[in-house]
């Protein structure tokens, strides 16, 4: 439950309170109430229970994504970490057409 999941910001809504974020092809709306820094499209953020809790520094994005790539791609049925990552994705608010390119 503390693993979180990183995603790429696609857009930030007008009042800056939420953002559309792409998590490995699944697009969700996240709240920005508690993110540590302002975010803009193209930034990566770490999502925990539907909230961005950290803007990931650009130079460190690839290293952060690698773990989640491994977990999601190689996960066997019932894999605990993959299930926790998917639960973190499900925590975001649904948006129309949110399955995205995944």
């Amino acid at each position, binding site marked *: 439950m503390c693993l979180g999941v990183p995603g790429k910001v696609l857009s930030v809504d007008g009042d800056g309170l939420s953002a559309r974020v792409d998590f490995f092809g699944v697009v969700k709306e996240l709240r920005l109430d508690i993110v540590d820094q302002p975010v803009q499209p193209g930034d990566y953020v770490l999502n925990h229970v*539907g909230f961005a809790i950290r803007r990931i520094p650009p130079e460190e994005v690839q290293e952060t994504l690698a773990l989640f790539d491994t977990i999601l791609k190689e996960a066997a049925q019932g894999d605990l970490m993959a299930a926790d990552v998917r639960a*973190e994705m499900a925590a975001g608010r649904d948006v129309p057409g949110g399955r995205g390119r995944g």
Partner: protein
Amino acid sequence: MADLFQELKFRDPGRARALSQAIHREVKAVGRVPIPLMHVCGSHEQAIARFGLRAVLPRELEVIMGPGCPVCITDTPEVDEAVALAADGKVVCTYGDMLRLPGASRSLADVQAEGGRVEVVYSVAQAVEIAARNPEAEVVFFASGFETTAVATAAVVLSGLPPNLSILSAHKYVPAAMEVVAELKETNIQGFIAAGHAATITGWGIFEPFVRKTGTPVVVAGFEPLDVLAAILKCVELVRAGKAEVANCYPRCVTREGNRPAQEKLWKVFRVADGVWRGIASVPRGNLELRDSFASHNARHRFRIDIARVGGQEKNLLAEKCLCGLIMSGLKTPRDCELFGKECRPESPVGACMVSSEGACKIWHLYGGLPDLREVGT
């Protein structure tokens, strides 16, 4: 013989091998064994077990999971409060793993099966939506999780709750439990591995008073297998050098001061209070309670919750054999429990550690074999 570092699918097997060799060297240099280190995060145990990290560590180095599963340490009376509210006709929303967590006699899943309204949510924001859609109902969010998760609850409280939504807080504060476990003589923990994402919020500076008080080093770690190995190496180095300090091995996500806006919201809404953690017993300053200014949305103020009504009458013989408490204190491992994998399994859990995806027993059960490949002779 197959190359263990290739078998374990490290992203960079060469770097993994180098880290493992350095850990072996450092452990030897410490000169006294065993060296018990403790981590306090279910996600760390998942990574360690899933990627078989214990297989590349020296036998003398024990990496023990402590009280790192927020669902598991939610105490029985807290579950009973949620069960009583659901049995009383309130709509209880909670995170998935809380559903089957045993109360004195029933879990929320039992109340649900009896017709009670219990809704699983992935975010507190979804509880707000449920309350807004059901204005005629009293909706209660049974909030679990450490400070990382409590900040989300705090944000929602501060942005204004629907009048029919209240919070039943079972949020817990990890640094408080670390102090309790650090003082257990039986475990003799030499160093702590702290959870990266909790520290993303609180900052690594929060561990400085702990280190000064206990003389035990703390290393903040990420969740990638190489991150975990690097943190273990750093921790053994500090043990070897006799240095009680905090090291940050997860600078990608953690700074000294942490996420200030999130901390402000957290402490505006919550205060620490003495609590009881399942299995650990009393944890001074270990609970996060809603401040009085939010009393109208505090389920404990808003309703008279009678947990005696849902208490257990008959003795549960299986539960008496359960070692969850000792496992969460780091005194035993799941393998020491006679119920593990037999009477107690993920589909029919006896203890809390087999219920949650962050519980040591469920993790060891599902990643069976991997937690300690040293025992099967790789």
